[in-house]
């Protein structure tokens, strides 16, 4: 079957389904990436639209070239068995393979101030990392496009980090951040406030006690703001589950069509190219 074999009603149904699949695959793909949760609503919308359009184009091509021409084969018992089993495997894999997909973002406000013993010194923070997952928090909200985050003496910088709290991993995640300072920080006082709960670290080269290269921040994380709406709401979780199921069925259909294409080519050309030689 080809697109011009469809009547108007079928064409509307076809394009409606394509849009639904594109939306589902976009949701299934993008909510697995921490990057998505770290954007503003406007940036997130732009990413969703651009990615969605690329996916839409790919799905349209795949459907027109591979799925639609053999759509009549899908009522075959073997085809149904393959599609059902593969959809199940994919759905389970999608549900379990990403903790971020089910996560709700929790925002923690960070204020970092440094007062150097000498004037015109600065402190470089090489990395802010979640030690449980090794996830690197982007420095954008502190006004830096890349690490290190530099805090001049006598200045404070303000930003935020976003924890992704997922029911799959929540029990194992400790609420903390490690800040990598480096080997020889300048002498002075570093004050880090997490959600307005201050912690103070003193760096002193002359003192015998070693300066820490990595500072672990633990206080203040109980006062973060979790975005329950929409991430914790049942309709949203249900929508993501439906997106997974639709994506899985589409991928199974596509893989069936692709393999059918490979097999039918092989069957047509078995006699044409045996691949033998007279060695």
């Amino acid at each position, binding site marked *: 079957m080809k697109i011009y074999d469809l009547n108007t009603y079928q064409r509307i149904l076809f394009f409606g389904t394509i849009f639904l699949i594109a939306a589902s695959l976009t949701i299934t793909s993008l909510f*697995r*990436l*921490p*990057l998505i949760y770290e954007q503003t609503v406007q940036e997130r919308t732009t990413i969703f639209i651009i990615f969605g359009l690329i996916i839409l184009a790919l799905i349209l*091509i795949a459907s027109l*070239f*591979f799925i639609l021409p053999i759509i009549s084969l899908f009522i075959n018992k*073997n085809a149904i*068995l*393959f599609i059902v*089993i*593969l959809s199940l495997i*994919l759905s389970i*894999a999608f549900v379990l*393979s*990403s903790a971020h997909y089910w996560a709700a973002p929790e925002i923690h406000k960070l204020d970092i101030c440094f007062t150097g013993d000498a004037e015109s010194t600065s402190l470089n923070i090489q*990395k802010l990392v979640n030690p449980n*997952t*090794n*996830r*690197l928090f982007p420095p954008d909200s502190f006004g830096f496009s*890349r690490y290190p985050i530099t805090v001049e003496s006598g200045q404070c910088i303000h930003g935020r980090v976003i924890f992704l709290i997922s029911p799959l991993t929540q029990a194992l995640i400790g609420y903390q951040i490690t800040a990598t300072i480096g080997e020889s920080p300048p002498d002075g006082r570093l004050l880090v406030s997490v959600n307005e709960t201050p912690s103070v670290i003193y760096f002193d080269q002359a003192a015998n006690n070693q300066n820490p290269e990595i500072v672990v921040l633990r206080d203040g994380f109980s006062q973060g703001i979790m975005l329950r709406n929409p991430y914790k709401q049942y309709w949203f979780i249900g929508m993501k589950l439906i997106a997974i199921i639709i994506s899985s069925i589409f*991928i*199974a259909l596509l*893989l*069936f069509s*692709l*393999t059918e*294409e*490979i*097999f*039918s*080519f*092989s069957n*047509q*050309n078995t006699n*044409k*190219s*045996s*691949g*033998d*030689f*007279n*060695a």
Partner: protein
Amino acid sequence: MLKNKQKNRLSLEKHHLLLAFTILYFLTFGIFMAHTSGQPDQAPHSYISRQFSQTWGIPEDNPDSQYIITGQPYLYYWINGAVYKIYRQIFPNGNLHPTLLWRLVSVLYSTFTVFFTYKLAKKVSGNPFIGVLSAFLLSNTLMFVYVSGGISYDNLMNLAAIASIYHLVCVFKKEDFIRHTMLTGIWVVIGSLAKDQYLLLALIIFLIWIFFIIRNFKQIELNFNKTNIFLSIIFVVFLCLFVGLYGNNLIEYSRITPLCYQLRGIGQCRTYDYRYEYYEPFNLQWMWFVRDNLSDPFRYAFTFWIYKMMESIWGILSHNSFIPIFSVSLHGILLVWALFSLVKNWKFINKLTLLLISILVAYAGYVFLWNYKREVEFNFQHYVVTGRYLLPIVGVLQSIIIIAFMKIRNNFLRRMSIAMAIIIYFSGGLGMFLSRYSEVFTHWRLYY
């Protein structure tokens, strides 16, 4: 009949579409990897490429540098130098960092490697979709893509390996003998001039080519048309370069490539790079005494080597390492399943697939023996045991995997095997890169 012709034409269009998608897919993944650090030996590759970008010939050794240029395979560096000089001539004020330029050149080499993998699998199976699938698997092999994003002669060597094997297969298919022999020879010399490790593959290819000539001597048709004469001249030029490097080294240093101490004072050679010059040489008398305490080759292979190879082909093992153990296990299961399918359907395997299997076994066997010898010499400290050394034949492996799956006689199992291969490779390739970016690859991010 007409309907069949139309259907075939449509099938061709479809596989071209899939091939274009695979190439674009690999380019995107490769460019991502070009922005990550930790690929093998970036400092010497970068240094030597810089030296070559200052001359059109072979630069002289800097006595203060720990890296040696004299007598070493140079083609990869020479091309890097030429690319940089041409870039500078076209864009005198261009601000593209030379290391990024060379990384992008590497991605380009590997794109052609992906393309030749497609051509090879298509040639052997007669099915272009099998070619596309093999290319897709290679495009998702984590270590291959990771190395492709770095400055490394491995990328030119991998391209030369798959291209020479492809033309050898064409020789065996009795396509124009002169043309494909010359092209095989040209690629063999290109590989050998890129990295001396290629010489082993050159030997294997040469022996197989001789085998073909002996078996088909009377049937070979020599066609000296203009293209073939031109290719023969290019081959002779490349052969001269080959002899000029390795012949000269054999005469002057009695070795394929000179040792550090043959060119420098002994004091300058005591760095980690030249550790091979200071080891306990493989000695039969010593082996006699320690024979009961050695890890025998079988135990070594099945308790260490095979797993290490898998981890460092479908994971990353270099100056930065990332081994997604679940993904590696799934690739392992897929490999075992392909092997089982191959053995079970052995009588349906065509002779070209046997040729690929022979090359794979010979090359992998040598790398194993080479690794084992090094292990014995260095008291099993696991120097240079990494899947990177198998990358020249990984495209061959992936072609065999798909061909093996295609031989499964149960339609459902065959379909499921291919579908699972696509899923496992995607989720262990670009899928893995994107989903673990914020936890792994962002720490390796390079800014230019």
